[in-house]
């Protein structure tokens, strides 16, 4: 399928962003409910979702704040959860680095798991996409998700005291991330990288939040590159 115009690229992004609503809505609701129950004001709960827009780190921060952790530790743990996005930024740079500053800043603000993953998969499958089409596609995906994230945080916060926070809803996160990663297992190199990521992350689970994951990710990426070059050499 060829993306020919910027407008059609935007709408392709919107369409590809729609399935993510399934995971974004319950999590936004949950953040709103938990934020208010933890003692944040409506303005503070909303500021988290509007300014930070990073579900996992928002939950991590909230959890540590409930434990009255030192502010420095809250920030370190929550930002460590987001460090993977520096890798997303670097992966997007070859595709979007030529865009005007304000567009790159907007992409930076909206550079979260779903928008990154949908976009990078699209760019790799369609190398002929133009720069404006790539930016439009990214914004199409992101602008389906981010307003819903904020609106449903608000609805969750309004429900706040009335809805009991059910811990089981949190398991939708691993289900959603596994569903996202499975179609990306395109080669033995990808499978090997995923396997190493799991093994190292589990082995280092005792380290402070986020740090074991970063080490696992680096090991997994190196594994992917090594296995890929083996496969290339094995080809006649």
């Amino acid at each position, binding site marked *: 399928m060829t993306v020919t115009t910027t407008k059609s690229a935007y709408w392709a992004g919107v369409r590809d962003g729609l399935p993510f609503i399934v995971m974004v809505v319950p999590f936004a609701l949950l953040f709103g409910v938990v934020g208010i129950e933890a003692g944040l004001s409506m303005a503070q709960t909303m500021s988290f979702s509007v300014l930070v827009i990073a579900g996992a780190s928002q939950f991590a921060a909230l959890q540590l704040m409930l434990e009255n952790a030192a502010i420095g530790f809250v920030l370190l743990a929550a930002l460590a959860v987001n460090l993977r996005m520096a890798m997303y930024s670097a992966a997007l740079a070859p595709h979007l680095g030529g865009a005007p500053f304000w567009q790159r800043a907007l992409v930076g603000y909206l550079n979260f798991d779903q928008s990154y993953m949908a976009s990078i998969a699209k760019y790799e499958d369609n190398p002929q996409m133009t720069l404006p089409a790539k930016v439009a596609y990214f914004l199409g995906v992101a602008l389906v998700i981010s307003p819903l994230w904020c609106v449903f945080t608000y609805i969750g916060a309004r429900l706040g005291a009335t809805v009991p926070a059910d*811990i089981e809803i949190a398991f*939708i996160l691993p289900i959603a991330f596994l*569903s996202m990663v499975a179609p990306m*297992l395109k080669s033995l190199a990808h499978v090997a990288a995923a396997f190493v990521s799991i093994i190292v992350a589990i082995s280092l689970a005792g380290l402070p939040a986020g740090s074991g994951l970063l080490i696992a990710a680096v090991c*997994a990426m190196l594994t992917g*590159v090594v296995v890929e070059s083996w496969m290339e050499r094995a080809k006649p």
Partner: protein
Amino acid sequence: MNYTQSEIWLIIGIMAVGTFAIRFSFLGLIGAGAIHPLIERMLRFTPVAVLPGMVAPLVLWPSSAGGEPTLWHFMAAAAALGVAYKTRKVVWGMLAGCAIFYGPLIMGLL
């Protein structure tokens, strides 16, 4: 929660600025074509390198089960992974995983 209002706003403010700095980093500083080919090659593996490691502890030691492994969590995770892999569609994996995980809850079996 024992923080003053200004401490809470400080946490939100630094998280907002810090998260933006992380997300904008390479997009803002480097621009196109300045990344070493080996690094670029590594970065193509970022999703499959980061997400499985993020998910594995949540599946293996689910907090809702007191941090003990359960067949239920494992089955739901396997269903999501297997169906999404087979169909190559994110949404079918999510539905399969949710059906296995939340189906018994909704039917009152667990």
